[in-house]
């Protein structure tokens, strides 16, 4: 799939739905054949009615079935009509089948492009953007909104096109018979469309209210299931069940309003169109008695107008579909248009052992200064520990190093041995992250094989490599416990792992990349002391050239570091070895709980 330039930037004035529809431009050939095919198919419908009219006329006038000389009837004319009708329908069926398949292929291609673009856009946006919008919201856009858009741009646009053709075909055939036959139904259809459009606006509003109160139901449901342990622990079942029922009832009230509105208002435009049917029969009857129309044509006219009465019903739902889709399209286009704060371009990162330095780095989030002119350096082959209280900005600092976030002020620079320093902003982020691994605080694994989870960072790693890093991360027992070893599935639908096991696998994943810089964001918090010290020992002995930044909270971890930094109020408030800091720094002693407190 290419860049799909059709929905690229610079088209901000254009309606979002139109911009998504313009994806069709990439498949002009297919689109043309679908339009042509469906056009013929839908025009074949009035054409069939026309043929039936002619056939009836032939029968009535005695052309099709004639008395034969020797008695009996010659029905060969009627047989001709049988073959004509069946032939036309077969042709039309083949055409319809072909067009349907091509339309399906086209629709899928379009959706494929749209979904692929969406993933690409979402993946390209930086963590700050994701944090701002929240996973729930992004997932909603990627699933529900894109489904609504799909309905409109694939099914909806086809229905709209077909409906237009049926209206045109019907009015056209009526016009062919007599202009009086066509005039009134055409006007009535116009009036009905205007009414339906107005109603649809109100219905969309009602639907949205209902949808919003259904969101409350879903939210309550999801929290009730995810929080079941807490609900049980506090015997909150009855309370939550009542709350849920209240939400359901509130939704029912809103949904009822929408149902009532449709039930009361929708019959009006339909009745208006059905007046067209009455008109055609009445006017046609008069024309027949005056000899201006033959009875067969009248039958055909009644046939097509009756078909139209039922098709017009769909206008209302089409209008609603497009109204729903247009706000969804807006939300999707927003993602397409969002500018990643970290563009995916830049120079290759330097080779060899690396040093990283933060110079006067400042980060602000929502007008609060989280990090305030921080200076620190990570040297190859050293372990730097970073401690700070809950919410002091440690994780934010951790994300600056692999450039998952850029600082608002100051810079992060990197160099190889004695080469000149390079500003990270000039380095290609993906390439840099292959050299600089961050292990997150909350261990996230994909539902995939254990090996698949690890190979994310290094697709060419051998099984032996994987066993090796699992050993380094003290996670070999996880693989041993899976029936299929490293090929066993973990994550959702796979074996459930404990927090400590997940942390160790995430660590193993980072190690597989053989990083020059490794950042551990409290990534060993769930490990017991023995395992943790074994892991840290392995890091030191096997990653002897790696610059390691370890965010931690336990004294034992700090003691294993070469240097400890104390983060407080967004600044580095203390630096030194664990021994130095614990000897002189009371804040540090307090933070790590080194003073055996006398019972307060």
């Amino acid at each position, binding site marked *: 799939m290419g860049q799909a330039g059709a929905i690229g930037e610079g088209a901000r004035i254009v309606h979002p739905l139109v911009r998504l529809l313009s994806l069709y431009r990439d498949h002009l050939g297919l689109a043309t054949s679908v339009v042509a095919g469906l056009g013929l198919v839908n025009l074949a419908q009035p054409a069939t009615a026309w043929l039936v009219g002619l056939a*009836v006329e032939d*029968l009535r006038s005695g052309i099709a079935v004639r008395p034969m000389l020797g008695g009996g*009837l010659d*029905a060969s004319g009627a047989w001709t*009509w049988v073959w004509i009708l*069946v032939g036309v329908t077969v042709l039309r*069926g*083949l055409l*319809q*089948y072909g067009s349907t398949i091509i339309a399906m292929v086209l629709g899928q291609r379009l959706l*494929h492009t749209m*979904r692929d673009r969406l*993933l690409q856009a*979402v*993946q390209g946006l930086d963590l700050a953007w*994701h944090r701002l919008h*929240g996973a729930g919201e992004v*997932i909603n856009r*990627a*699933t529900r909104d894109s489904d609504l858009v799909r309905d409109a741009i694939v099914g909806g646009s086809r229905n709209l096109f077909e409906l237009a053709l049926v209206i045109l075909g019907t009015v056209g055939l009526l016009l062919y018979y007599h202009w009086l036959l066509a005039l009134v139904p055409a006007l009535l259809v116009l009036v009905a469309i205007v009414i339906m459009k107005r109603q649809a606006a109100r219905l969309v509003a009602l639907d949205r209210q209902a949808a919003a109160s259904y969101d409350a139901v*879903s939210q309550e449901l*999801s929290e*009730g*299931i995810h*929080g*079941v*342990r807490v609900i*049980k622990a*506090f015997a909150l*079942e009855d309370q939550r*069940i009542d709350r849920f029922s209240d939400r*359901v009832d509130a939704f029912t009230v809103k949904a*009822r309003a929408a149902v009532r509105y449709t039930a009361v208002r929708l019959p009006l435009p339909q*009745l208006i169109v*059905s*007046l067209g049917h*009455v008109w055609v*029969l*009445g006017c046609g*009857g008069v024309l*027949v008695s005056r000899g201006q129309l033959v009875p067969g044509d009248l*039958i055909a006219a009644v*046939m097509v107008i*009756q078909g139209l009465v039922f098709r017009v019903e769909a206008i209302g739902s089409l209008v609603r579909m497009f109204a729903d889709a247009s706000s969804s399209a807006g939300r999707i286009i927003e993602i397409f248009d969002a500018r990643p704060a970290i563009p995916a371009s830049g120079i290759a990162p330097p080779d060899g052992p690396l040093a990283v330095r933060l110079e006067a780095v400042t980060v602000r989030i929502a007008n609060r200064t989280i990090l305030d002119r921080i200076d620190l350096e990570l040297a190859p082959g050293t372990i730097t520990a970073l401690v700070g209280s*809950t*919410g002091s900005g440690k994780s934010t600092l951790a994300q600056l190093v692999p450039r998952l976030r850029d600082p608002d002020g100051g810079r992060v620079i990197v160099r190889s041995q004695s080469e000149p320093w390079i500003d990270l902003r000039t380095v290609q982020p993906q390439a840099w992250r292959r050299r600089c691994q961050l292990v*997150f605080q909350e261990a996230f694994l*994909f*539902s995939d094989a254990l090996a698949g989870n690890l190979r*994310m*960072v290094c697709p060419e790693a051998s099984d032996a490599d994987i066993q090796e890093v699992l050993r380094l991360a003290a996670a070999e027992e996880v693989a041993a416990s899976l029936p299929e070893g490293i090929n066993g599935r973990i994550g959702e639908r796979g074996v*459930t792992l404990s927090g400590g096991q997940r942390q160790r696998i995430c660590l193993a994943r980072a190690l597989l990349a053989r990083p020059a810089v490794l950042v551990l964001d409290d990534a060993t918090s769930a*490990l*017991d002391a*023995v395992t943790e010290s074994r892991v840290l020992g392995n890091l030191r002995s096997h990653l002897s050239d790696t610059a390691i930044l370890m965010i931690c909270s*336990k004294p*034992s971890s700090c003691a294993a570091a070469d240097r400890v930094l104390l983060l407080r109020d967004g600044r580095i408030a203390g630096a030194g070895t664990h021994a130095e800091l614990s000897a002189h720094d009371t804040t540090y002693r307090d933070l790590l*709980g*080194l003073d*055996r407190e006398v019972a307060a």
Partner: protein
Amino acid sequence: MSKGTTAPAAPGRPSDLQDEEEQARAKLDRATASRLWELTRGSRKALLGLASLEAIMVVSIVLRPWFLADIIDHTIAGTATINVFVFALGGLLATWLVRFGGAGVAHWMAGHIALRVLARLRSRLYAHVHGLSMRYFDSTRAGRIVARVDRDVEALQPALVNAAPEGLGVLLRFTGASVAMALIDPWLLLVLAPLLPVLLITAMLFRKAGQKRWGQVAEAKSRVTAQLCESITGIGVIQQSAAESSNRERYGRLLSDLDDSAIRASYAWGWFGPFTALLSTVGIAALLLVGGIHLAEGRISVGELAQCVFYVFLFLGPLQEIGDLIERLATASAAAQRVFLLLDTRPDITDAANARPLPAVTGTVTLSGVHFAYLVDKPVLRGIDLTIRAGETVAVVGPTGHGKSTLVQLLSRFYDPTAGSVSIDGHDLRGVTQDSLRRQIAVVPQDNVLFSGTIRDNLRLARSGASDAEIDDAVIRLGADEVLLALPMGLETDCGPGGTNLSHGQRQLVCLVRACLADPKVLVLDEATSAVDIHTEGRIRRALKRLVAGRTAVIVAHRLATIRDADRIVVIVDGLIAEQGGHDQLMSAGGRYAALYASSQLAGG
């Protein structure tokens, strides 16, 4: 794991659909129908009304072509007076009024019934789910449970509300058209008859093929969605691993699978529309042929022939709709089976028939000979004997995965032991009501879940009548004020869905305060402060010391500062108590605990 799988995307991985089909296959269909009928109790009169309405509408539909015939015959015969026109057109208008007016009322009625029945079913399912035991939640994905109450209930609507009246309507239209045609000319009906089995059989075949293929499409679609959701939740890891392009490729493959299955499905399904159109045309052609002969013979009039052309649509149309109806019913019945399966799921843990409320206890907890296994052949606890005196604080330590958290689950009766017993003040937990038990024992679990709403709302869950002052006081008493009150909005901070607006450590603090507010006799903390910085944890520990006075406390922890303070330390290794005693006692014993302690204190403290 792997059973016969059809999806090419990930071999060896059974699909959700297959899982569920397998779960649901056992018994069904007739039972399903009667149980669905059961659900409509209370709305049956309305359903009957709906059905009668449908019948009235059918009459108007069957009458309509007759007015056409009337006009045609009169105009041809030159007998079309103004009265004829007024009568026919008035009648025609009346049929439309009945048709669309009736449709409006039917929509209103069906909507009301549906909303009512589904709302009741949703609430019932939700209540039922909350009666199930932890084993169910631990072994069933949350998303799947949500789908039962959400999508599957929605999918029942056609079966519960629309199917019966629509089915009746279909039947009546078919009968009406047949009778009308037979009255005009029985031969015409006979000519059409052979089309019936053809249409019915093909509708069934298409339905079968379609169901299977649409199932595959749904499966492919759900894989795509799952992958997308995972990519969004794991975006940090993807970016960190520079795995954007490989993830996109993988997603692209799933998309192509979806494309293929959707297109394949339309290959099979796409024939249905053209085929039924062909049958209709064959019907009309046959009618014109026979009707034409009869016309020539003077047995029927032109108007009657035209009338019958319309009856062909009425005659065959319902059969096409039957296919559609069956299709929707099939979807609904699959959903119904899953819903009923959930309703049939019985909790492993229920209040015994003679269960009594737990009286006020002092808090002596006794485990005797406790064995436990989640899976039959993998014992987790292998004979634990432990008595915790009222008011005692016990720390449970040991390597990850050796049974500490399991022990905790047994204390609050989230699970029952496979052998042995757990009791409080001599009351076996199996003999008391779960509600009364959990009012006196509060657990702070590892996974800290908050509900949307403010921190204050979340705290109030534990004690619904608590005043603002009491809540503030609890936060301060526990030493969580430094962190929680420092938030921009303090206790009024919105936690966000699932508590995602707060950091891990902040969430843990809220959970801890919540547990203390419940004022339990027995307090169980399972790694409850693992993400809180040590300074704050220290404050909490000191506060807890005061708070646990007069309560029994069981604390699972890694941080030794927390453990050290306990009255007794129990070391669990391999599902057994390896050693127990005070900190100094265990240190001098030089066993597992001493080793653990030494490694964490490498640099001294």
